[in-house]
């Protein structure tokens, strides 16, 4: 059971759990912004780039 859970954790979350949490937060912020009159399309690409860079910095 432990190995099964570890497999799914590695499969979906991977090496850096902060990665997955940051993406979920970015989606939440995008959804909130989309309910306002401000265009929200730019937020997710920028958030993804920032999250990726921070994760890469941690890895090196």
């Amino acid at each position, binding site marked *: 059971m432990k190995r099964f859970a570890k497999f799914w954790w590695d499969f979906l979350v991977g090496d850096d759990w902060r990665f997955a949490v940051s993406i979920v937060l970015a989606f939440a912020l995008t959804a909130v912004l989309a309910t306002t009159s401000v265009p929200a399309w730019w937020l997710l690409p920028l958030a*993804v780039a920032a999250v990726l860079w921070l994760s890469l910095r941690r890895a090196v």
Partner: protein
Amino acid sequence: MVEALTIVLAMGVTRSWRAALIGTAVALVALAAVVAALGPALTVIPIESLRLVVGALLLVFGLQWLRKAILRASSWRALRDEEAVFAREAAEARTAAREERGGLDWYAFTISFKGVLLEGLEVAFIVITFGSAQGSIPLAAAGALAALAIVVVAGTVARGPLSRVPENTLAFAVGVMLTTFGIFWGAEGAGVEWPGDDAALLGVLAFVLLVSLGFVTALRRRRLATA
């Protein structure tokens, strides 16, 4: 798929082709069952919710691929060496105890089964997410089967591990594509209206590609500076 082929080849060459191929076939049936069970279940979810879930999953999954590919391309992580993996798997297979179950070499069967199932789950996941988001799981599955056929034919022709396949370049491209679709569908699911509608996908693709290549260049410079 290349990784799975390496494992099956190592089991076939060192232990038993019959057990390795039966293990592969059973794993493929299990993967087909996963796609057949989850695919139709996802299509009953409303399209906006589906795109949010599929987009988030693709993004998390795609960024993992992209992150590894960028680290490898910038020399911060070693490239995968299929020849070395083949040699290691073959050496372990030669020393493993021989146990027969159901007339099969159990070691070759289980290693082949696990290798194909675990590597194939990534493919099944991509088939389910892309297929359900676009409303055509059979077409996505056909694409995956075509890719599988190419890998098997290439492995048969090469008669060995596919060490000359530019695996990291492929992983980088897949990571960029998964991340692009994850951003596009996920944002739509979150209520975003893209300027230019579907044409915005090309803009997102260009953005992800340029950012990723920029990160490779920046990390490569950093690597050289610390060497």
